[in-house]
């Protein structure tokens, strides 16, 4: 039992070490590439096209529900005028970055993992090696930098439409004063809050992209039976690990931000 726990911990630590090394390579390999802007725009476009619709839909509904829930809590204390502030802060600091990241992982992260996994199995990664093209730089780096740019942008979309959703339920449906709703937001939300929220988005972008790319890139080593089954295994794993990592990092970053 103890030895089993020990073995698993050793494997986890060595896996994390490999992931860190892989991420290091991916983050520095971009300048060695050609046509950087082309690759970067294509990657950003890929994430954007895949994820903008779902981000907007989920953002809107989250705002709607949040408006409803918080309204009923706040009326108990006769302070429904605080609704704008409550909705905005919970979305900007917490729900926006976390939900957006989970949506992107489901849409783009899984696709990334599967695509790179299939490329591994089809010898495309070996082909890049023989052409002296750095495969991590070619396949992973543009995706990483695209995520660094796209995660905060998509999170901002989520935040804005979520706050508007809160307005729709709170003001249009339940009759909170519109002036109060928007004013409380202006007064209560600081630049620091926004920065903190987007910082989370940035970290989630890096962590999840690296996890998804790493799983796909080494699908031949990480699956029981390499091949189609292996790719499905590693893709599932990429999504699960990414989701766990989002919540873990969320907790970590929040505690740091609270402390400072």
């Amino acid at each position, binding site marked *: 039992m103890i030895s089993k726990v020990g073995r698993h911990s050793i494997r986890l630590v060595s896996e994390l070490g490999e992931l860190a090394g892989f991420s290091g390579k991916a983050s520095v390999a971009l300048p060695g590439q050609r046509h950087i802007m082309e690759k970067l725009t294509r990657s950003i476009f890929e994430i954007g096209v895949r994820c903008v619709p779902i981000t907007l839909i989920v953002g809107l509904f989250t705002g709607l529900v949040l408006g409803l829930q918080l309204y009923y809590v706040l009326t108990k204390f006769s302070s429904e005028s605080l609704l704008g502030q409550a909705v905005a802060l919970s979305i900007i600091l917490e729900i926006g970055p976390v939900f957006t990241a989970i949506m992107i992982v489901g849409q783009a992260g899984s696709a990334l993992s599967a695509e790179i996994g299939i490329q591994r199995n*089809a010898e495309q990664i070996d082909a890049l090696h023989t*052409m002296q093209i750095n495969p991590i730089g070619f396949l992973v780096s543009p995706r990483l930098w695209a995520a660094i740019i796209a995660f905060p942008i998509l999170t901002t979309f989520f935040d804005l439409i979520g706050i508007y959703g809160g307005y729709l339920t709170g003001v249009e449906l339940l009759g909170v004063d519109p002036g109060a709703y928007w004013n409380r937001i202006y007064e209560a939300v600081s630049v620091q809050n926004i920065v903190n929220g987007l910082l989370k988005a940035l970290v989630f972008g890096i962590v999840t992209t690296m996890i998804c790319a790493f799983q796909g890139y080494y699908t031949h080593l990480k699956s029981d039976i390499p091949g189609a089954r292996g790719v499905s295994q590693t893709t599932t794993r990429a999504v699960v690990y990414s989701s766990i990592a989002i919540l873990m990092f969320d907790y970590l970053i929040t505690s740091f931000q609270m402390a400072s």
Partner: protein
Amino acid sequence: MSEATTLKLRGLKKAFGEQVVLGGIDMDIPLGSHTTVIGKSGTGKSVLLKCISGLMAPDAGSIAAGDEKGAPPCSYMFQQNALFDSMTVEENVALPLREKGKAKATEIKKRVSDLLEQLDLTAARKKYPAEISGGMKKRVALARALITNPEIILFDEPTTGLDPQRKYSVFDMIRSYRKRFGFTVIMVSHDVPEVFEISDKIAWLDAGEIKYWGTPDDLLANPPEDLKPFLNPQLSPA
């Protein structure tokens, strides 16, 4: 290019866990020649090519061309073609030039379109790999291997899955390009004896060792006993 005339493989060993795939391979491959590696499926022919190309690190042994360590620049034509399915035929062939080397965009365009013309692929140049036939994919992979003018091209079963006519046209292509550009061919093939016509040397890989190494004519004139069933396979009497 160095003055080397041979590619020297010395004591190449490769094992996966318990399974010894290459048990110490020694070969002197004349540069500029065509060597064909034959042998049963699963004996390690692809592993041998991958070790030569540097894709796989051998457990022991060395590869050298003259005084230089390691093999000179190799192109590799993969068994499954390894084309990028999100790129068109044209983009696939241009890839090694676009991502490496000094060629300018206009020169790349010209070299790619000339080569596509020669390989009869011009009509397919805007198509994606999924939209063309297996034989065309092979030719695209060949074009991508040729485009950089490498010193050595490694071919892993370039004709597997092709009809007899296409098979000969691929062999023809390899022979005529080798004549023209003078690169070294190391090829894995099951197409015995057709492939003998274009080969200078035959290497028979079996149980991790080179059991035969010589010209096709010598091989046919005086085949080792174990190799006979491979050269002339027959159904066992019913």
